[in-house]
């Protein structure tokens, strides 16, 4: 059973921003879906990773890329050729 408190916590972890008035609806939907997921408890077998391809890497050499102007054109805010972000500290 997922509680409103759980949903609030998950919303925090996911940085999704939940309003208090949304909690009841999201919690109800969450419970119905998670209850359906519980069918997976009955799955039998071993988990194996199916790897036909792995570690496909290229040489670490400089190749043509976006210009500074192209790379920053969609940013919300820029300063001196840098992208501005909210403060972390």
């Amino acid at each position, binding site marked *: 059973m*997922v509680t409103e408190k*759980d*949903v609030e916590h*998950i*919303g925090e*972890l*996911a*940085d*999704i*921003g*939940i*309003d208090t008035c949304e909690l009841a609806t*999201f919690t109800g*939907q*969450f419970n*119905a*879906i*998670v209850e*359906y*997921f519980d*069918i*997976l*408890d*009955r*799955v*039998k*077998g*071993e*988990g*194996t990773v*199916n790897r036909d*391809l792995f570690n*496909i*890497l*290229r040489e670490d050499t400089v190749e043509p890329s*976006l210009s500074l102007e*192209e*790379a920053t*054109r*969609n*940013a*919300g*805010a820029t300063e001196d050729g840098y*992208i*501005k*972000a*909210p*403060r*972390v500290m």
Partner: protein
Amino acid sequence: MESRTICFEPDDRYNAFLRTCPTAPHGEGQLAGVAIAVKDNISTRGIETTCASRILKGYVPPYDAHAVSLIRDAGAAIAGKTNMDEFGMGTSTENSAFGPTLNPCDPSRVPGGSSGGSAAAVAAGMVPMALGTDTGGSIRCPAAFCGIVGLKPTYGRVSRYGLIAYANSLETIGPMAQNVADVSLLMSVIAGPDRKDTTSYDRPYNHTPDSDINGVKIGIPKEYFGKGVDPAIAESVNRAIGRLEELGAVSVPCSIPSMEYALAAYYVICTSEASSNLARFDGVRYGPAADTKKSWHAAYQDVRKEGFGPEVRRRIMLGTFALSAGYYGKYYAKAQVARENVRKDFTRLFADVDVICGPTMPTIAFKLKEKSDPLSMYLSDILTVPVNLAGIPAISVPCGKVQGMPVGLQIMGRPFEDERVVDVAYAYEQAVKV
């Protein structure tokens, strides 16, 4: 070289397009001057690309997706960007931030999703071909609901470079068109290796559809005709299989026991991948700007609450939950076992049969707003998600009507045998052509 232009100003009464290119340049080649619609989660240089989300409003990609580069090189004109469920999350195209697309066969019904705009644009005759993407049925479902043809290629056969990621272990770009020959033609242009997508294979598609299916062995899984599937749909698909038998194919009953867990496994995996992939939308590098005066988490949460629609927020939270400490083993790890079991079931069946056939969707297109509860919408994907879990190719081709609405015959094949599913679809299409 793009040197000439076409004029593209369609009567878009179904809201199939989010934006059109009234003067679309094109070059020479296999697709010279052909107007192609591109789903809005596929990057197009210089053309706004939003994934039908407010969080990407105004985003103009500085580069083309590999598949888009290939169709431009083949001479195609990019006619516009098509509507979809936000980030591909939905089965009806109702989860678009810019309003739903309507089904051209009956505008009171949904076109299916998430590539509903691409399907409606083709079905309404606005374009002959379109690119869609398929994570859990998003090409095949709208193809079935709108009465067109859609191919979900083998995973790795078409580069995902420039496809804005939602669930990258499941999704692929693929062709949609009014007929099988055009789907095959578009597939021949977009398939092949790409060093910018490390999961792409060097398996080009150079194929002309062949209607000779004499001796082809078809598996008919009982799970595709059981509980939850409208009996009228099952009857229509059975008639189509009968037609394939008249053409020389042989059908045998079979079973996919792992189907019981496939839908839950699919939703655990796709939401988990979404929770990681969509973390990049933070209002810093693209989309509506974050308030840089606020703290990181406060600014991030404001942007995402405002920018993402309810279904996207729900799936990000479900994925965060499924991957969180204490629940990972119960959900994500189990879902991976279930996924492997689906793959094993297909491998076992394909040792004996060449293709597997069943309905694409369990019902005809539903009415707008008919499925307001998220879980009931998810359950509609039951017949399409096994293919994505296994990474195999599958095509949906129209096979009659129920209550005046199109029904899709789904043909699934072995990995990298996209040609064979195309041939079986082509044989059926040619046989019923009036």
